[in-house]
């Protein structure tokens, strides 16, 4: 029994140690974001700021057009969520409901496309959007594709729709409901948790997306937050005496992380279910 207790203590020690390693970068980000610049460069380094310098936050957010970047990001995010929810719900219902041989073939094709490396398609897609549609330096390339059903979310919703009781759907059909009516009146209300998962993942994907904005946006006024933040690195936060104003950099980074952190705490279950389902198809 004693050996068992020892091993439990050891497990806790490992878990706490690992947590510390995981959290350390975030913790020092918070701490640095609240320091005065003199303290950032002060020897020896401090973990807890001597004076909490909250004014770093407004200062950081005014050294680059934060609100504009936020607005751009929200445009991309909201259109993407709308598009993803609409298109993926309809497609997933098709795959879940209408069984035939073609269904199985196409579903397999769709799943296998999830493994394709994005870089192969990204160059011709870039040419199509910029040269033929004239969408260079606009937000369209970032959200228009979401109206065409991303395989991952279709898969996630199809799995969910297949668990719904078919009796209920058949009853509605007998009562004269069309297929779209069944989908809209019965399937969608019953699938709120799954739809929430899709929305949360879409938000996160678009909020965090770096390569998309990097390829398509050139005018700094059109940047999203993720791209704007790194742009800020090379310009805004520089102090004549000390060099890089790391306190402002950290404050700005934290602000960009914050929505993801908040969302994560509210919708942790959605995140975990979504990630789990991707693994379970394997």
């Amino acid at each position: 029994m004693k050996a068992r207790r020892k091993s439990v203590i050891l497990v806790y020690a490992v878990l706490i140690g690992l947590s510390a390693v995981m959290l350390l970068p975030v913790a020092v980000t918070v701490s640095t974001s609240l320091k005065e610049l003199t303290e950032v460069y002060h020897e020896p380094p401090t973990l807890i700021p001597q004076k909490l310098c909250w004014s770093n936050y407004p200062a950081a957010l005014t050294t680059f057009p934060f609100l504009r970047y936020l607005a751009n990001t929200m445009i991309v995010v909201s259109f993407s969520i709308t598009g993803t929810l609409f298109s993926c719900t309809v497609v997933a219902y098709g795959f879940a409901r209408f069984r035939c041989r073609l269904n199985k073939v196409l579903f397999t094709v769709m799943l296998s496309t999830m493994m394709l490396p994005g870089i192969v398609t990204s160059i011709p897609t870039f040419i199509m959007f910029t040269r033929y549609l004239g969408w260079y330096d606009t937000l369209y390339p970032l959200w228009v594709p979401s109206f065409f059903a991303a395989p991952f979310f279709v898969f996630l919703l199809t799995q969910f729709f297949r668990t719904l009781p078919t009796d209920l759907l058949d009853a509605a059909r007998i009562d004269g409901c069309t297929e779209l009516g069944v989908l809209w009146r019965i399937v969608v209300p019953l699938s709120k948790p799954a739809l929430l998962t899709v929305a949360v993942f879409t938000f996160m994907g678009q909020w965090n997306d770096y390569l998309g904005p990097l390829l398509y946006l050139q005018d700094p006024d059109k940047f999203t937050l993720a791209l704007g933040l790194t742009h800020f690195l090379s310009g805004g936060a520089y102090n004549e005496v000390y060099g890089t104003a790391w306190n402002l950099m950290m404050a700005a980074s934290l602000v960009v992380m914050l929505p993801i952190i908040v969302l994560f705490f509210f919708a942790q279950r959605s995140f975990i279910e979504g990630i789990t389902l991707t693994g379970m198809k394997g």
Partner: protein
Amino acid sequence: MALRRETKLLLAFISPWMIGFTMFLIGPMVASLYLAFTRYSIQSYPRWVGLQNFRAVFLGWEPNFYHSLQVTLVYVILAVPMGLIVALSAALLLNLQSIKGKSIFRTLFFLPSLLPVAASGIVWAWVFNPKNGLLNRVIELVSGQQGPEWLSNPRLALYCLVVIATWGFGGGMIIFLAGLQGVPRHLMEAALIDGANMWQRFRHVTIPQISPVIFFNLIMGMIGAMQVFSVAYIFQQADASVSREATHFYVLNIFYHAFLYDRFGLACALAWVLFVMILILTSVQFWAGRKWVHYES
């Protein structure tokens, strides 16, 4: 007749995906295959040059191909197993019955993997900054000596990127946890009754039972790591002293050819070479997986 109606409805409902599949997948893939055989700068029209791009790639006229491939493969070989081992270990610990506060630990381990790379990249760039970064200041405080130039030393820079990749093990851990929860209890109990010790139970019950999940994480980790881009790019932006040599990953090389040097044909050829390499690596894994991946039928 009934079947036909079903098929028609199916096609109607899935048409958004079929359009997307044509426009954003098959179309671009065919286009990029064609462009790989052309010389193409975006203002002009593609001009057919046969195998010239591929000759450039393989015969070393394109100076960065072998180098970027090597850097990327070393990164894959280090980062993927590291991520798998840490993710599996954490999942095993969190799956122990006697541990309390599981959900707190799970949250702490999972969250970093979700943070935007633009923001966490900046934080890491500061952590490894040689002059006033966190790591070297701690080293100086403890040992009184100047720490190494983490990011300008090619070898160290690569290790730093592996550390950052490992930091994002949370997603893999969540998938492992789900897999571990699916291991049937009766198998564990049977092994226990037969007198199997902890290692034997792990080796002969847990591992075979979760092998499909290990396989999935391995394949996805590999495909992802082959395409590593953002962190390296952000590092190069953040700090002029960052070793270009160590961070010149394959996809970064493609990116520079296409979007900096306006060589879209060459970039497409490079992308297709990467695609075929990933295809081969994945097929090899699937072939090898038949020997060790155990599917419950």
